[in-house]
């Protein structure tokens, strides 16, 4: 498959930390039905680099993160951490794995225990992961300074309900850092927060990434924030990666019709001429109302995006395209890239097996 030859745009930042190789996850739903939540997803995380996984609700991006975090069992595929295949069958193995790979959840209102103080939330992982000889008190204070919850003393005795959303999410970050992980999986870390503090939180994450050389997976449905924050963007649709490439390229010249729809849907005040107010539906090439591919609308055969895609033809309804290489670092899974993104494939791609449909 051509995606094996694709290089990650994040690779330049640092050494390889984690590899996800052909991950798949099926959920059984109801009588004999299967939901392919994640299908044949491969990507790499590098120390000090951010890879963004972008997609809508139900696209499988959170499931992918949970697979990497060891919280769901793989249906098939391999995860490698520093070159070694990950086995988390035993409890001890799971804990060791957790001290390397940490997950930050979306909702700071439900991911902290309401009956425990900030101190408890941070002391526990320090004791669990740093052993008996750790200076717990000092470590907790230094964690809070890392996430800029200062003065630390003032916050230690507080309960989650006494904190603002941003402060709660800082506690979540500090809790994840307590294990001194190498890989941080951030599942929509800012989408529940006010727009005005999102940027500050992303800046904080960026700062933590640099300071601890974290390999970071940033999951979001906001492709604009991925443009600013990530090195590489993977666009996920109905469990599959439909496009990948350097963040700036993917957002400025999206190749896959679904990525084009995502980009067109982002609020764009700089384009006031064709706004919602004018009554026009500024649509990308695909319509949004083919219903997101949750349980019912997903195409079971062919390209999963074909029911919503303006370029879909019989081939798309029959066969599911693999990632086609567009350049060294870019690929898109579409049979009709020549129509969807002619400016990208008009020149023959270097060494790639571009579509010839």
């Amino acid at each position, binding site marked *: 498959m051509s995606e094996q030859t694709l290089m990650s745009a994040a690779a330049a930042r640092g050494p390889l930390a984690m590899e996800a190789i052909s991950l798949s996850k099926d959920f059984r739903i109801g009588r004999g039905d299967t939901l392919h939540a994640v299908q044949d997803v491969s990507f790499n995380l590098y120390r000090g680099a951010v890879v963004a996984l972008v997609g*809508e609700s139900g696209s499988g991006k959170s499931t992918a993160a949970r697979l990497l975090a060891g919280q769901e069992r793989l249906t098939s595929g391999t995860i490698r951490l520093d070159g070694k295949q990950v086995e988390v069958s035993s409890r001890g193995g799971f804990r060791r794995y957790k001290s390397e790979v940490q997950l930050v959840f979306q909702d700071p209102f439900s991911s902290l225990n309401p009956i425990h103080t900030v101190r408890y939330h941070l002391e526990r992982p320090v004791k669990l992961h740093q052993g008996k000889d750790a200076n717990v008190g000092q470590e907790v204070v230094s964690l809070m300074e890392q996430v800029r919850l200062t003065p630390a003393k003032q916050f230690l005795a507080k309960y989650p309900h006494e904190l603002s959303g941003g402060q709660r999410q800082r506690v979540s970050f500090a809790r994840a850092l307590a294990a001194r992980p190498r890989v941080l999986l951030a599942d929509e870390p800012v989408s529940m927060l006010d727009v005005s503090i999102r940027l500050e939180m992303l800046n904080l994450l960026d700062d933590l990434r640099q300071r601890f050389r974290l390999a970071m997976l940033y999951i979001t449905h906001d492709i604009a924030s991925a443009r600013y924050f990530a090195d590489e963007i993977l666009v996920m649709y109905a469990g599959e990666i439909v496009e990948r490439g350097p963040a700036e390229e993917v957002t400025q010249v999206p190749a896959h019709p679904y990525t084009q729809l995502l980009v067109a849907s982002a609020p764009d005040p700089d384009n006031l001429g064709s706004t919602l107010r004018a009554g026009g539906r500024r649509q990308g*090439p695909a319509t949004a109302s083919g219903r997101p591919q949750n349980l019912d609308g997903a195409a079971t055969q062919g390209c999963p995006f074909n029911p919503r895609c303006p370029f879909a033809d019989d081939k798309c309804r029959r066969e599911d395209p693999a990632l086609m290489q567009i350049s060294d670092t870019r690929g898109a899974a579409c049979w009709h890239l020549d129509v969807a993104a002619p400016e990208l494939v008009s020149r023959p791609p270097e060494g790639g097996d571009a579509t010839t449909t």
Partner: protein
Amino acid sequence: MSADPAADRAIDPVGSRALDRAAHRATSAAAGPAAGSSLAGAGAPGSSPVLDIRDLSIVYRTPAGDVRAVDQVNLALGAGEVVGLAGESGSGKSTLAYGACRLLRAPALVTNGSVIYRGRRVSRPADILKMRPDELRRLRWREIAIVFQSAMNALNPVLNVRDQLLDAIHAHLKMPRDEANSRAASLLDLVGIPRSRLRSYPHELSGGMRQRVMIAMALAAEPEIIIMDEPTTALDVVVQRDILAQIVELKDTLGFSILFITHDLSLLLELADRIAVMYAGQFVEIATSDEVHREAAHPYTKGLLNSFPSLRGPRRELAGIPGSPPDLRNPPPGCPFAPRCGYARPECRDVDMRLLPVTTSRDPDHVTACPFVLPDTPAPSVASGSPAGELGT
């Protein structure tokens, strides 16, 4: 930028399809038994306001003192107008909207002001804050409906969609059962949900569909005003855009006014006719969307505008707004934004937060609470502002 040719070419076929769909919706709305008849033809924005909030103050009584959640605000909502209420969590925007409809209960207390409602169906203007319970019952949902933030919690999990819609219809309109049934079905048509979903329960619907059901319920009694409290915050961008486009379409067909509450200013710039920016219980700036976008005067508005990453154009340096809102039990003297403001100076302690006209603006009603900073005031140096800002470089 280079994406444009592809997008332009592709928009045409789909654009016309969307229009067809809109036309279909409009006709199905008109064909429905009662829909769209009395409200067609909205008044132009700017005519005498349907809702006129004057000097409204709301406090939360706490043992530690009063929290001044809304402090002496004035806001008018014109017929057919979309007014956006922007601000951070805790700025008082929801309290303002709910207080204006008398939906708050203790410890919240309206201490001052009036809320004049001038609907086309009521004989003369009335002050909502002085209404008797039976008058309030006639006002709520029939005249002013609300789309609540979390559709997950606002819908009853043990009733199917049809029963919830019928509930809303029977509670506010006198209507035989058959007619109500077909009205429930046509309401679903209106928001683009297939009629086969009438028997579905909320947990069987996606988040976007639930929000659409909430909108259908708000439309059930053809209200003059719909208050939307962060209706799309929990949704992802594609669904969000689709629902917002639908709201605009419905507004144009049915002619109601919208008070749209959100923390996402970028959304309002596209959606609202006018935007009121709220901070710590007070308005800091009110202007048309275009003016807010081009000529924002207040430092807080400028900060909000500089908070979201843009997808198109060159990568800007983003500053965000450092710090957090003040404690409203004990607000700082003068301008409450001063501690976070890059333009702050000693005189800010004496600012009385009265809204002053921005004389240079193209919008004659453009007002700002900051007497020092004008739209063209150069941004303060980064050193005095936020330490954050590396992302955009």
